């Protein structure tokens, strides 16, 4: 959708709002009159039609989960982290939206009596979520750039903390009451400003494929150090709040340190023994799992008893678990689904029920909110930026690092809820800080894209990925066995490989298109490159597998599978011109198109696979690539022919058939054994389709030897498609353009018909030429057409 169309839609929606409100009030009244007796337990819990609390809570949970998923998906569609959508869903269920629009229904569905039960569920969810966070914290992240990271992360805490304390001077008389000491208030506000959400940040980094870049590793290290320090600060803040003085908190702090020491030594030793046990048996038994869960709860209870919050105990246990890949991974996989899908949204809903955006009902309050937001952003961004620049990091990277560290998201919400429960933070301040957390997280992805766009990321790939030589610069820098006069590839084929084990034929075709076959001899005058592209799709935004460490592991696995596949082709010197690209993404088609553009690919060669919801071979993901990609695309329908020696090109003088013909000629030139038949079909005795002028010229340019292997018969037939199908019985590979003649045409809604693909006897290569927008009409008509 164009930007102006989006704006028009928004304006239309805005004007619809009053009518929506009237409709909602009407339904609210009707609903509450119908079901109020059943839902209400205000009147008499013993009444026959009163809904028992467990049922009500389950109903609430159902609504919460459904809405979280829906809104989460919506946020993914606008390229934001899914977890932010879930937080917003929780807020929507509270007095900020649901309570505003349909107060009677909201009261009936979420009465005060049910809230404590939601609280219990959300505490349990929080404990296990913090355990998962601790599990993910991998010392591996701390291995590089440690000195820069420690400096940057400490400054990125000290600056917002100081600014937060100063802001407390402004806020305390306005939004706090005298049951809270100023010290506790200032400490809490400072801690809230210093938070960086490590989990959300790690996922953003993985999604942008930054985890192996200098920026990515630095950001992760900074955020990890930042996270741990901020939790310590929070623990102190909680201790001070509970005892209302710094001195009074000292015993609590000492006890915490003793406990941490105990966990890092005794418990860690014990857990390491346990993980050795796991390695021996190779599976996580229920007994072991129950022991670990009991440990999580016990640890949480201990820290609560000490005087810091439940979450620290759970986090600690996760952090001291041995970072043995097998045990940790299986533990995370077993725990995360239920926690992330069921329990965590309840926490967001519980938090949302306490968020009252309606409290900000005057301009001065919104101004105050803006001040809080400003301080938060300035503190984090400026602190990180200046520290990074002082360490010698480039301007752009330092800026990107600043925006990344500004992400507060989920961790901030946890801190704020604790503050609200303790009474340090009042409902108004809570709401302001929640808004701050959401806005700062929301702005990270777009600002990161703006300061550090993807094309720059490619240049920054560190030495580990030197075989990812998709850019000239990195190829130049690759100082391995290549000689100084190595030619840069002038023809690049991008081959999306969904499943390395089954796409041998596709890769073989790509190699055949790219390079002359063995034994052709001669120098590579026009060297070509094949880039098998393996995109790892991370569907579950918050799962363990989307942490940078895990993503790396999956990337290595794919890389080795691809290498195996390339080996199996038995093409000599494949490594010289076959360079795999492996990336993480959540939108395969869009990423493919982007990579094709950045890489300046000449052709995308994609394999056919059956899409989920239709049987059209050109629908689904292939169709998306056809729509998004701005380069020529060829779709390969493999029928398993080992050799591609007899080529058939049905020709009807249009640009797509021309492309098909060119590809066929390339194959022809690359191997002496190949023969080409260019088939023209005359319908009803019409004059034959003339070979286009272009084609004639190309034919003249070919060496005689090649021309001798080409035949150009003309066939009379009523239906061109059937003629081609008949001819394909004798061919190994048919190459057809996307034109109506051959039953593969683009329809009005962008779908392609695929008749030929269904009936063709041989393997089929469907060629679609990319034609840029016709600029003559664009300014006159509002639409643009694309072939």
């Amino acid at each position: 959708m164009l930007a102006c169309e989006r704006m028009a839609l928004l304006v239309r929606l805005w004007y619809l709002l009053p009518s929506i409100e009237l409709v909602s009030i009407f339904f609210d009244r009707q609903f509450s009159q119908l079901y109020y007796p059943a839902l209400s337990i205000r009147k008499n819990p013993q009444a026959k039609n009163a809904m028992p609390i467990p049922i009500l809570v389950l109903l609430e949970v159902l609504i919460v989960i459904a809405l979280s998923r829906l809104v989460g998906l919506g946020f993914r569609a606008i390229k934001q982290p899914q977890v932010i959508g879930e937080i917003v869903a929780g807020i929507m269920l509270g007095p900020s939206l649901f309570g505003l629009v349909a107060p009677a229904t909201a009261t009936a569905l979420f009465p005060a009596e049910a809230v404590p039960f939601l609280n219990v569920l959300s505490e349990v969810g929080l404990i296990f979520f913090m355990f998962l966070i601790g599990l993910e914290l991998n010392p591996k992240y701390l291995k590089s750039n440690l000195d820069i990271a420690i400096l940057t992360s400490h400054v990125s805490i000290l600056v917002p903390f100081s600014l937060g304390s100063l802001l407390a001077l402004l806020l305390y008389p306005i939004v706090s009451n005298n049951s809270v000491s100023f010290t506790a208030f200032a400490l809490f506000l400072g801690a809230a400003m210093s938070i960086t959400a490590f989990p959300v940040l790690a996922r953003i980094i993985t999604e942008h494929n930054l985890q192996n870049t200098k920026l990515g590793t630095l950001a992760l290290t900074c955020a990890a150090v930042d996270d741990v320090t901020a939790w310590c600060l929070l623990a102190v803040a909680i201790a001070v709040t509970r005892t209302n003085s710094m001195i009074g908190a000292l015993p609590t702090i000492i006890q915490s340190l003793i406990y941490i020491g105990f966990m890092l030594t005794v418990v860690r030793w014990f857990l390491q023994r346990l993980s050795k046990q796991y390695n021996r048996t190779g599976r996580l038994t229920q007994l072991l799992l129950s022991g670990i869960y009991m440990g999580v709860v016990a640890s949480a209870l201990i820290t609560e008893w000490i005087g810091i919050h439940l979450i620290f105990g759970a986090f600690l246990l996760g952090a001291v678990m041995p970072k043995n890949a097998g045990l940790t991974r299986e533990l995370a996989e077993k725990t995360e689904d239920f926690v992330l899908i069921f329990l965590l949204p309840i926490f967001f809903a519980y938090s949302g029920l306490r968020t009252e955006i309606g409290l900000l009902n005057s301009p001065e309050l919104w101004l105050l909110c803006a001040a809080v937001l400003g301080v938060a952003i300035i503190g984090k961004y400026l602190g990180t930026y200046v520290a990074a620049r002082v360490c010698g990091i480039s301007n752009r990277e330092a800026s990107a690092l600043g925006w990344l560290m500004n992400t507060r998201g989920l961790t901030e919400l946890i801190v704020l809820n604790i503050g609200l429960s303790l009474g340090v933070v009042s409902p108004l301040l809570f709401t302001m800080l929640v808004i701050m957390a959401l806005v700062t997280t929301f702005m990270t992805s777009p600002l990161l894209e703006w300061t550090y766009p993807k094309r720059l990321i490619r240049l920054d790939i560190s030495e580990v990925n030197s075989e990812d030589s998709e850019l000239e610069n990195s190829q130049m820098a690759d100082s391995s066995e290549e000689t100084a006069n190595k030619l840069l590839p002038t023809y690049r084929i991008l081959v999306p490989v969904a499943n390395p084990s089954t796409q041998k034929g596709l890769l073989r075709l790509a190699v055949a298109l790219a390079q002359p076959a063995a034994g052709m001899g001669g120098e590579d005058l026009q060297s070509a490159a094949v880039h098998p592209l393996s995109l790892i799709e991370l569907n579950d935004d918050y799962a363990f597998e989307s942490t940078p460490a895990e993503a790396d592991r999956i990337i290595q696995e794919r890389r080795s599978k691809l290498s195996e596949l390339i080996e199996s082709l038995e093409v000599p010197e494949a490594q010289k011109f076959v360079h795999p690209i492996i990336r993480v993404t959540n939108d395969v088609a869009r990423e493919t198109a982007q990579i094709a553009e950045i890489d300046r690919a000449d052709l995308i060669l994609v394999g056919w696979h059956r899409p989920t919801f239709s049987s059209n071979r050109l629908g689904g993901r292939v169709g998306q690539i056809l729509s998004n990609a701005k380069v020529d695309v060829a779709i390969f329908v493999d029928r398993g022919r080992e050799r591609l020696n007899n080529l058939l090109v049905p020709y009807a003088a249009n640009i797509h058939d021309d492309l098909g013909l060119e590809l066929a000629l390339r194959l022809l030139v690359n191997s002496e054994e190949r023969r080409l038949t260019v088939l023209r079909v005359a319908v009803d005795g019409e004059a034959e389709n003339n070979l286009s002028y272009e084609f004639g010229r190309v034919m003249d340019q070919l060496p005689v030897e090649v021309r001798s292997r080409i035949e150009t018969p003309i066939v009379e037939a009523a239906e061109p498609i059937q003629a081609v199908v008949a001819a394909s019985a004798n061919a190994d590979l048919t190459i057809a353009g996307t034109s109506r003649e051959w039953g593969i045409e683009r329809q009005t809604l962008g779908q392609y018909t695929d008749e030929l693909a269904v009936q063709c006897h041989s393997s089929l290569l469907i060629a679609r030429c990319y034609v840029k927008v016709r600029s003559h009409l664009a300014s006159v008509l509002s639409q643009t057409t694309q072939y």
Partner: protein
Amino acid sequence: MMNHLSLKSLAFYGIAIGSVSLLFKVVTAYGEANLKAAPAIAGTYRFDPKSLPECLNSDVLVLTIEQSGVYLSGNLRSGSREGREKTAQEKPSLFGRWETQGLNLSGAVPNLAGCRDSTATGQNSSVKMRGIVEQESLKGKISLTDKTAATDFTAQREAAVQPQKQED
């Protein structure tokens, strides 16, 4: 790894952390001494409504106040059994501020059946309250905005909204 333990780095961290701690100490000292926040008056207050004007004169009235510093919001409801429990999301209909002279609340009373039908136009009438909190009671004046006379009232705090603090 040894880099960040060098004298220069240690000195830097020492100075940075030291200065922030000093700043914090100064700020908290200033704040504790000079800054006063509003007293905690959030809670539920029960009225003796006999002396209250017009439609407010039902059997028992309950005022719930939510506080965020100087910003107050609240609800005035019938205190009989039905209306006893506060719902999770009851929209506050009274808004106001805490000033040094006391609290100031005004707004509609949609939860009081009597007041809803009182005016000819069928709109909710609104109330205006001013008062001070002395220990557990709230004393002040209340009036319906379309009537000029303000009546005195006294309300006793019931269950105050207390934060959870550690008990040992």
